[in-house]
């Protein structure tokens, strides 16, 4: 985990000062050191979290001949193998770090071929001083972040939005389409952010930027489903092999390494393979514990730790405080709707006292079919062929006590969903605020300034286009292409980097991804079981209890937290503003928000006609996120 930032073609007398300022803003990402490089309008800044080659891996790093300058955030795990290959081409290396490999790969193979050989997580910038060309690249899944902005012929980039906001030329105008999509999905759809002038650099892409010209973006890899028939035993054996190989790469570090252990399938499996297969003998593992039983997974994580013999640390989290909520949400520089960012942030805080690098199970759900909603989707899809489904839907829409029962409401919802196209169905399955809710709750001004089309219409490019792969593969592909980068990985990156910790994700290793794309869908999702293959590997290697566990989201008990200090804080945060300020510039219908808040504050769960308890608190969390963002950054709306 490092912080990189920089610019191209920026001839401002204050350029040096700006570069240092951007670097200082990213201090938390790399507390071990920092340096800048500035030459003829091109500047690079780097904050370093030293993981590999603690002595000589200082950046910005110049190549042996001085032609290339590199700043890099992440790890290229196969750098030893790449070095061997490059040395055969006559390359000489001054350091033993992975950073030096990037520029030499570009020199020998070109960026298009070189980047395909990298096995790891990375976002880098390389400046060719001879050709006056900037190369940027980001890993396949988007593990490492990169943002950019182009203003008046100058090009700027940084690991986090906050560094780009320090640039005077970058405006603080809010992006209404980004905010609109945030309300539906909990994040803006990349490449958009909630800032008009700032874009997200797409994963699996590289860019070549020359002075004043538009950046030439090129995709170098794409998630493709290529199912290959294999037996169950064969699949289990292969899964174990690829995961072990991935783990061997992922433990390459010159600093203490730990693992996040929730007690769920993914993290348990990784910890177990690490210890039981002799990859890493002594391991620190970490988890959080809530006083609310339904959120507490600690007994499962303790069991896995006992089986694997790891030294297990549990952080007990009591009631949430306004301070925690603000601190966490402010890190994201734009509204962020996934409430699990709070425990992720808190656990990172305790991990930093023990380790510098952590293994995490992220990516397992997206690659191996871990979400129940994907399973539901195929049932919903079957309803498409239901005869007279529109008539049935109308009958179920009658507002009567009989048709109001929970079960029938679910049927009605499922039939309603079955009429949707794939992108719309994806939104409905995730949806925080539906399109209809947005129309009734939001200011018309906001809705009109946002893109006219509904959020789902901007999602086509994230849906795998291969014919005949089936709805489950399509939705899983969308989870991988969209939610993974914009929600889950972003959450982890921001929460961990705030504490100077590097999180490594073995499930997102190139070989594991390739294996998952070959795996038949039946090995991922079975009639009643999600993530079938990984469960089977877990049942055989760890315990049947862990393998059979139902998936539990890594959320916060916002519901019970809201009864304490947080309740007053949220009321004040949202309702103290007049109706032309703050969140009311987006949410026009104050009465609906008040009614939502009243439901949220109700002491006992009641039978809600349309929203579940979880949906209510999720919506409140999002509204708080918007207001906290506005208070912090004062965006122009």
């Amino acid at each position: 985990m490092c912080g990189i930032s920089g610019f191209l073609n920026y001839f401002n007398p204050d350029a040096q000062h700006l570069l240092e300022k951007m670097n200082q803003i990213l201090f938390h990402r790399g507390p071990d050191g920092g340096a800048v490089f500035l030459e003829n309008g091109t500047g690079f800044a780097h904050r370093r979290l030293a993981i590999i080659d603690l002595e000589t891996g200082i950046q910005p790093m110049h190549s042996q001949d001085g032609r290339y300058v590199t700043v890099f955030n992440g790890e290229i795990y196969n750098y030893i193998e790449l070095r061997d290959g490059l040395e055969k081409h006559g390359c000489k290396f001054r350091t033993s770090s992975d950073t030096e490999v990037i520029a030499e790969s570009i020199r020998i193979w070109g960026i298009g071929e070189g980047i395909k050989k990298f096995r790891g997580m990375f976002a880098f910038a390389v400046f060719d001083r001879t050709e006056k060309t900037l190369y940027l690249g980001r890993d396949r899944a988007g593990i490492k972040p990169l943002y950019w902005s182009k203003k008046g012929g100058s090009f700027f980039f940084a690991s986090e939005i906050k560094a780009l906001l320090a640039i005077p030329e970058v405006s603080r105008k809010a992006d209404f389409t980004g905010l609109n999509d945030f309300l539906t999905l909990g994040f803006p759809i990349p490449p958009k952010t909630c800032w008009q002038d700032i874009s997200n650099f797409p994963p699996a892409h590289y860019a070549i930027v020359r002075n004043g010209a538009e950046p030439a973006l090129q995709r170098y890899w794409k998630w493709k489903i290529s199912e290959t028939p294999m037996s169950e035993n064969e699949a289990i054996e292969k899964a174990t092999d690829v995961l072990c190989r991935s783990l061997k790469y992922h433990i390459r570090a010159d600093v203490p390494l730990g693992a996040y252990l929730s007690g769920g399938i993914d993290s348990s499996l990784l910890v177990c393979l690490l210890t039981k297969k002799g990859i890493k003998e002594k391991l620190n593992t970490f988890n959080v514990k809530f006083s609310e039983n339904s959120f507490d997974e600690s007994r499962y994580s303790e069991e896995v730790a006992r089986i694997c013999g790891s030294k297990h640390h549990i952080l007990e989290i009591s009631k949430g405080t306004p301070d925690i909520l603000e601190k966490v949400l402010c890190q994201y520089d734009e509204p962020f709707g996934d409430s699990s960012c709070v425990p992720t942030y808190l656990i990172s805080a305790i991990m930093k006292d023990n380790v510098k690098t952590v293994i995490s199970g992220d990516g397992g759900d997206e690659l191996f079919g871990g979400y129940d909603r994907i399973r539901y989707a195929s049932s919903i899809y079957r309803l498409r062929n239901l005869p007279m489904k529109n008539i049935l839907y109308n009958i179920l829409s009658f507002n009567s006590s009989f048709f109001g029962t929970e079960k029938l409401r679910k049927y009605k919802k499922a039939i309603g969903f079955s009429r949707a196209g794939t992108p719309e169905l994806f939104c409905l399955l995730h949806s925080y605020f539906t399109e209809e809710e947005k129309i009734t709750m939001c200011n018309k001004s906001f809705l009109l300034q946002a893109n006219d089309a509904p959020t789902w219409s901007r999602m086509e490019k994230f849906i795998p286009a291969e014919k005949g792969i089936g709805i489950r593969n399509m939705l899983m592909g969308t989870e991988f292409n969209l939610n993974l980068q914009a929600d889950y990985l972003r959450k982890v990156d921001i929460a961990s980097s705030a504490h100077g910790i590097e999180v490594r994700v073995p499930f997102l290793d190139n070989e594991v991804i390739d294996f998952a794309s070959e795996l038949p869908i039946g090995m991922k999702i079975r009639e009643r079981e999600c993530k079938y293959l990984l469960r089977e590997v877990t049942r055989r290697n760890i315990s049947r209890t862990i393998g059979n566990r139902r998936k539990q989201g890594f959320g916060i008990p916002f519901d019970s937290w809201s009864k304490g200090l947080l309740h007053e804080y949220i009321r004040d945060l949202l309702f103290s503003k007049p109706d032309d300020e703050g969140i009311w510039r987006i949410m026009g219908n104050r009465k609906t928000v008040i009614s939502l808040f009243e439901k949220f504050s109700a002491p006992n769960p009641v039978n809600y006609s349309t929203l579940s308890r979880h949906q209510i608190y999720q919506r409140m969390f999002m509204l708080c996120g918007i207001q906290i963002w506005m208070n912090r950054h004062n965006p122009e709306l």
Partner: protein
Amino acid sequence: MKNRKTVICLIGQLGNGGSEKQLYLFLKYLDNSKYSPIVVVSSISGGSRWERQIREEISVPVIFLGNIPKIMKFAKFAWLIVKKRPSIVFSWSFYTNAFCMVCPGIRFIGSLRGDLFIAKSQIGHINYQCSLKPRHFVVNSRFLAKELMLERIPKDNISVVYNIFAQENNSCGNLDMAERRSMLREKLGIPRDAVVVAGIGRSSPEKDFPFFISVLEKAGVTEKKIFGLLIGEMGEDIRNKIREMNLQDKFILTGKLESAHEILPAADIFFLSSISEGMPNALIEAVDAGCAILATDVGGVWEILEPLGTDITYRIIISDREASSAAAKLLFLSQNPCFMEKIREHRMKILEKFNPDKIMSEYYEILNHGG
């Protein structure tokens, strides 16, 4: 004249409303060397102003399908299609979009001119689904386009064409605004220094005049000079409400008028209190009359007022329908003549959007290529 295209304009009813006025203006400006329009009304004659003007002033034939069962109306319209062989059928109401089912092989353009969610709640499911069948839609606000897109109508199949606004002659000749104002106030018996707040329309639930009255009552506590001017036919409920609140001295009700533009310049502020609108013509007329604006956050309002910029619009649009916050905004306006003037300064920019030539060129584009 031989090669003129026959265009059937199909409308649900021909009353005195805004949609009917828009149909009249469309027909008035339509190039009759290229198009031969016929108006078909799916109900019976009401002898309204617009019916009269369409028939007599611009000589467009009007055919009524009559008060018969719906299925018969479809059959009658199908027969009319065979007989008239139109090149285009342009459904002017959302409810008449369903007639596309009996127009196979004919270019059919549908419309949406009011809130879709309200239409959904007012007509049956089958009727609603059939009304979404046309291949191409004309809507008069971007917001309505957004609503249609939620019903999975592709963006490319929707054209946003704003209402036509044509300035009408007034009886005050060349008097400047201030002179007209004082002349009208004298005529209506309103004190010269009053802050006059006008509302326009028939007293339907959508216009929500009780809200209008409540807001004026609240604001009147602080600003004694506030005066309400309700232009149009008001029901007994509105009169009772005014009496109940003891505001008889603070309100003038003009009763039914052919056109509001003669009276509107008497007002300082126009207050749109509607619950729902497609594209409020009254608001455009008020801008033309030089009134400052206060409006609820309903369809079309933001689009009309867009040229004012968000700093102004957020201060004059009421998003929560709370009488107290609306009264606060009204007081702010009434006590800040400079702010009111700022709104007036943008008058021409706002009206430009609704210029007849501009709007008609957009209609021609659709008549030639849409549907």
